[in-house]
């Protein structure tokens, strides 16, 4: 059974605007594209939610830097830009962009989830992501 997405789904930091430069070092950003393939599943009420996590290790999340930023998947590929306060990003730390594909109204179900290392230690600030949700097996 798919687990449920916890927490609110506030759209805080996401904008479909051109990527601004870091300029005065007040903000940093992650941009990229996400393609989602749902096979023959119902595609209504499907959202892509992004959040940035600061990691203690590769697997343990130490801190979520912002609430999930969600966007409706009304087309196969969406482009996104996430902005974060530059002061929150520490070069010696590891960061992971967590992407969840969720569906539903009040009770959201996670259809797929992926994590990508970003921002520090040689990892990019621009990412290309693609998710294919496995189809239900056929008898």
């Amino acid at each position: 059974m798919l687990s449920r997405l916890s927490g609110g789904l506030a759209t805080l930091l996401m904008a479909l605007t051109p990527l601004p430069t870091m300029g005065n070092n007040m903000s940093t950003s992650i941009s990229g594209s996400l393609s989602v393939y749902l096979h023959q599943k119902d595609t209504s009420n499907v959202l892509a939610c992004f959040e940035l996590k600061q990691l203690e290790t590769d697997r343990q999340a130490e801190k979520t830097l912002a609430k999930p930023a969600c966007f409706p998947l009304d087309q196969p590929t969406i482009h996104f830009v996430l902005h974060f306060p530059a002061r929150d990003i520490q070069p010696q730390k590891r960061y992971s962009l967590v992407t969840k594909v969720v569906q539903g109204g009040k009770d959201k179900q996670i259809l797929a989830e992926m994590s990508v290392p970003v921002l520090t230690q040689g990892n990019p600030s621009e990412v290309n992501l693609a998710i294919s949700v496995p189809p239900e097996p056929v008898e």
Partner: protein
Amino acid sequence: MRKPQTIVAGLILLTAQQASAITIQFDYSSDTTGFFSQNAKNTLNAAGSFFGNLLTDSLSAIQSSGQNNFTASFNDPTTGTSRTIDHFSIAQDTIKVFVGARSLGGSTLGQGGPGGYSVSGFNPFVTEAQTRGQTSTVAGVQGATATDFSLWGGAISFNQNTNWYFDQDVSTASDLPSTNFDFYSVALHELGHVLGIGTADSWFNNISNGQFTGPEASTVFGGPVPLNPGLDHWAQGTQGTVNGVAQEAAMDPAITAGTRKVFTNLDVAALKDIGWQVAPVPVPAAVWLFVSGLFGMFILGRKKS
């Protein structure tokens, strides 16, 4: 005139090339209940070899490395729960199928399908991992415009409570007990689903008014092919032929105990319609070797006389 030895060598080489088009690799890491005896593995490998000899597509490799990361996802065939494998890589022309068994309930003998994935990294890795070189764009293998199919592999669950028969020589079904279900037939059927029959977008894009309208299948059948209500199988009882002999198609929804159903010309036509390239005549490698050996002996005999 070419020397007989050269001709024989050429035939053997042809045999080797035909036998190595696609490798279907079975992964038993999910088989925690020990369902797969050596006999079961042998029978499953025979089913895999059938498609390996039949399909001639070139599938590019998926090589996760550095920031290029491919994660395979599928329903674990033994537990039914979601399973992912991070930093997944697979060799060129290879498909990996995770297999297991559990109680599937009712009269279900097996279930299967292609896996999902998540992929991140640089292009062209992200595109190539999704298409495996089958089309230049992802839209060619996914969605409403798909005319082809690409996969890393998938998963198959067999019903652990079924009274199976694991045939060790699938060239004949004469020894198939009337009370047992033929594991070879069910394995072919479920592999058909992994390969996209009833699961690929290019399958569903060939459906109109509850019928499969792919040109290859329509030609073989003599018109659009009726489907079951779920649109993922031929209608129950749909007939095809095997070497000119009528047989209920392998990809209809049911099979009875004590019977063998191999892929008919209709089932093979469906594979073509969803994008697979298919060898003209799928002949087992052993037959090729036997025939080429006879031919070589014939040529040598004529030369001596």
